[in-house]
């Protein structure tokens, strides 16, 4: 659920965005990105310190340690995702000299790690912006990854005294927030956009800082989608609506309502159909709208539930239960699938609004009728 757009990239590599309350400060609560985060002390991931013209800065390597991997795993599972920020500022990768390239990235640790691990054997400077611990793409969408922050951080870091050249390599996905012409005007540094994926950075450097068209395209591969599923589920399990549903179901179980066990399994399956199966099978399910795709899997699941529950239905109670399953489950799957638009890499705001205008009324009607049928089934079935 929480979600958002933008898997991100640190120059970079996709490291799921999924924004939501914590990634979209503007959508809930209203915290201001960047002022409330505690940063991970560089001592915990740096391999030493490096002396420069303006003093010592942290030195990092291209290889991750156990702590970095453990931290990444936790974040993927949705634990402490909003508190995984490295201290902004300048870092040395390998043993850079005044002519080494300067890479700019966000201070979300997954972004920073995605960048450095794709640069083995390359000596460079990494300028980490304060994006409030948010990945590059999400931060760019909110404007925290932008010319203001680049100019300010550049000045504060003393980079002008450290390097002799005047070129910054920005992640392409930082472009929604950072304007290269504006950065050049304000800092005197030429801003060059690197490839979308950090893995292509070496090829980009080898080609004289030019990216082949393919390196400029965002994809949404099976792997990219799979990695987002745990986050989707973690978000749902922690939502109030899920907890309310769980409480209601437990009450029904305790009260001994006959169809309760099957109803619980049916609901859990519909959640998986919308938030796990739909994202994974996205390109292969017909339809353009995410809600349509979720509804299709929801109908398939509801049909399976009806078969398990005994079809054709017996009596008014059975008929009502069948109607409840066929109406409510697809609506639930469709809603959760629609929420995955925020984690996808190709939906526009206009597209999502158009989809919601069309789908939400249908979903609400189906869910309402389904719930009414479920109550009827419970009453009739005793």
């Amino acid at each position: 659920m929480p979600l958002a757009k933008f898997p991100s990239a640190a120059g970079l590599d996709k490291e799921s965005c999924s924004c939501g309350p914590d990634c979209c400060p503007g959508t809930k609560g209203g915290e201001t990105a960047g002022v409330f985060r505690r940063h991970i002390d560089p001592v915990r991931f740096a391999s030493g310190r490096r002396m420069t013209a303006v003093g010592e800065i942290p030195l990092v390597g291209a290889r991750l340690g156990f702590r970095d991997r453990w931290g990444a795993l936790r974040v993927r599972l949705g634990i402490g995702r909003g508190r995984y920020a490295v201290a902004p500022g300048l870092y040395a990768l390998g043993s850079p000299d005044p002519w080494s390239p300067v890479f700019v990235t966000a201070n979300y640790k997954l972004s920073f790690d995605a960048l450095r691990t794709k640069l083995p054997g390359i000596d460079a400077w990494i300028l980490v912006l304060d994006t409030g611990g948010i990945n590059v793409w999400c931060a760019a969408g909110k404007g925290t990854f932008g010319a203001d922050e680049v100019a300010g951080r550049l000045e504060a870091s003393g980079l002008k005294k450290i390097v002799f050249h005047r070129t910054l390599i920005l992640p392409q996905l930082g472009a929604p927030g950072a304007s290269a012409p504006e950065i050049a005007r304000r800092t005197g540094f030429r801003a060059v956009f690197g490839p979308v994926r950090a893995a292509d950075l070496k090829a980009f450097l080898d080609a004289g800082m030019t990216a082949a068209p393919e390196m400029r395209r965002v994809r949404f591969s099976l792997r990219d989608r799979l990695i987002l599923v745990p986050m989707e589920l973690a978000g749902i399990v922690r939502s109030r609506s899920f907890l309310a549903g769980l409480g209601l179901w437990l009450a029904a179980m305790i009260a001994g309502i006959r169809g309760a066990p099957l109803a619980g399994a049916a609901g859990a399956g519909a959640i998986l159909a919308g938030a796990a199966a739909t994202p994974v099978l996205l390109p292969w399910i017909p339809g353009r709208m995410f809600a349509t795709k979720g509804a299709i899997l929801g109908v398939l699941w509801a049909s399976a539930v009806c078969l398990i529950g005994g079809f054709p239905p017996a009596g008014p109670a059975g008929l009502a239960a069948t109607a409840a399953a066929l109406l409510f489950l697809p609506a639930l799957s469709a809603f959760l699938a629609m929420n995955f638009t925020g984690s996808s890499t190709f939906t526009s705001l206009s597209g999502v609004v158009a989809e919601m205008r069309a789908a939400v009324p249908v979903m609400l009607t189906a869910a309402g009728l389904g719930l009414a049928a479920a109550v009827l089934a419970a009453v009739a079935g005793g």
Partner: protein
Amino acid sequence: MPLRHLKNVTTLKYDSRKCAGCGLCAAVCPHGVFEMNGRTAAVTDRDRCMECGACARNCAFGAISVRAGVGCASAVLWSLRRS
């Protein structure tokens, strides 16, 4: 197979008469919507636009406009709840 969302919804507008041919729009678009056609940028496939706003933000000549936003149903719901 490329994933596609709805057709004819994007707010992307491009005025080729203002294009100076710098090529930044083609460089920053994550979906290849812009392509350099000689000295001028051209829109290839509008329906692939995700309204991230990178092209407009980087066009120094004001040739591109788009209502940038995040295509996220959850964010849209949150904003409705807040207003």
